């Protein structure tokens, strides 16, 4: 019973983190229709910004978290403005944009490794002092509860933003038909820039949460990117709700998949799920 409860908690927590990655990834994909691989490295940017401000400069942790989120958003926004926008203007194909995003990912990851070294670090001040709660025999930490609460808050906020604001409707219009969105008077490049900011900030926040829960390392973005992309494809790429659904499905399959076997199989199970969907339902759960 304890193992079962713990696996459920682990699945939900993993699902929440993947959902945050998938939300930003799908938001950007919906607006631009290209796979922005640099999205993964935003998690490391968020994590290392908090690390720098709290561990090196000894700043207030809450302030550091806000700076980390904003900085990740700003890097995402700048990538669009200085790399992707000029390429879109030259009518570059989605493949060119994908390669450019991979280049940006690798470059930023290398810079982080140079600035902070490649060692695994943690953002928590004192891991042993962290509060934890026992529910139905399973244990969940305070940080993990914060992960769940903030994931729920961000998902709700994003849904409200998309459905209740002019800005959100403009994003949906761009996602549907960018050219017609321009025709009706939407400055699509400006909106896409903001989408990059929001999506990257969410990924940065996910990186910070992971940093508090487990830890950070310069390469952390790759694993999280893979999981976010798998969640997006499984749920239906470009579909926000699909991404969330895919994320939780991935979280459950991954964690229950290693119930009786070694945890080293986690990634293999995740990619097996991806392959199954690519073969039998390539458009994902939500996309018709």
């Amino acid at each position: 019973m304890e193992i079962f409860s713990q696996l459920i908690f682990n699945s939900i927590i993993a699902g929440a983190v993947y959902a945050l990655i998938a939300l930003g990834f799908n938001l950007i994909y919906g607006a631009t229709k290209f796979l922005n691989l640099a999205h993964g490295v935003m998690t490391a940017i968020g994590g290392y910004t908090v690390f720098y401000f709290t561990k090196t400069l000894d700043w207030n942790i809450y302030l550091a978290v806000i700076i980390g989120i904003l900085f990740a958003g700003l890097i995402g926004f700048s990538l669009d403005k200085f790399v992707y926008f000029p390429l879109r203007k030259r009518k570059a194909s989605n493949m060119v944009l994908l390669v450019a995003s991979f280049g940006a990912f690798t470059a930023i990851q290398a810079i982080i490794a140079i600035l902070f070294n490649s060692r695994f670090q943690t953002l928590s001040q004192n891991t042993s002092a962290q509060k934890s709660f026992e529910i139905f025999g399973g244990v969940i930490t305070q940080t993990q509860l914060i992960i769940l609460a903030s994931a729920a808050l961000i998902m709700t906020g994003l849904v409200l933003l998309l459905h209740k604001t002019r800005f959100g409707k403009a994003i949906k219009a761009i996602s549907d038909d960018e050219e017609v969105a321009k025709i009706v008077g939407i400055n699509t490049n400006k909106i896409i820039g903001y989408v990059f900011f929001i999506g990257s900030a969410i990924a940065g926040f996910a990186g910070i949460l992971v940093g508090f829960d487990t830890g950070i390392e310069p390469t952390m973005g790759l694993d999280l990117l893979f999981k976010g992309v798998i969640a997006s494809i499984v749920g239906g790429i470009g579909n926000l709700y699909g991404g969330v659904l895919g994320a939780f499905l991935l979280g459950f399959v991954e964690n229950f998949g290693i119930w009786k076997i070694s945890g080293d199989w986690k990634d293999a199970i995740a990619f097996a799920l991806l392959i199954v969907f690519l073969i039998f339902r390539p458009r994902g759960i939500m996309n018709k």
Partner: protein
Amino acid sequence: MIMKKEILLQLQNISVYYGGVKALDSVDISLDKGEIVALVGPNGAGKSTILKAIFGLAPIHSGKVLWHEKEIEPIPHEAAQRGIAFIPQGRRVFSHLTVEENLEIGGFILKDKHKLNRRIEEIMETFPILRQKKKAKSGTLSGGQQQMLALARGLMTDPKVLLFDEPSLGLAPKIAKEVFAKIKEINEKHKTAIMVVEHNIKFSLKITHRAYVLNKGEIVAKDTSQKLLKSDVLEKIFMGKLV
């Protein structure tokens, strides 16, 4: 007393290239306040490219676009703010949005929420079918309804100029007739200047005041629609006798 015409939109000496292929060759076109002008010609004549050039959606190689006799740089989202609306070919509605949301997006440049809601109400009075379907996803509408929605969305900002690319394309003749009747009604009621690209010459020349005949990116004839209907220039163009 002779009334001076008010020229709203002009294209002077416009040439457009797609890669190395010339799509428009030194084209001069004008649209006056309150008139309906047709652009007719065979496939590949460059009719749609003219509308796209006005909106900055086609790469202009040389020439000028003038708005109220002043040169402008054609940028898509700025054209809407000037009072030019464009309904592109193929009933391109935002298919994942509802009818109401499509209209809201059509009025994106209207910053005042009350003004926007009032305008949606006015538009729904003009297009009663859209009121019935206002909560339906526009992708589920019939072809004719989608075209009406595209037209309604274009009218959300109460534009001075409406550019309409192939209104009857893919529609049954009866529905196409309704669309053309609506175009005529909008022009007469609101004095909206309209430039319409249409492959169905009879339909378009019946409701328009003037027309330009294009062939291979050049204007080969321009006159009042009535005179063009009586002349043999259209027959020559479509039979390939005029090159």
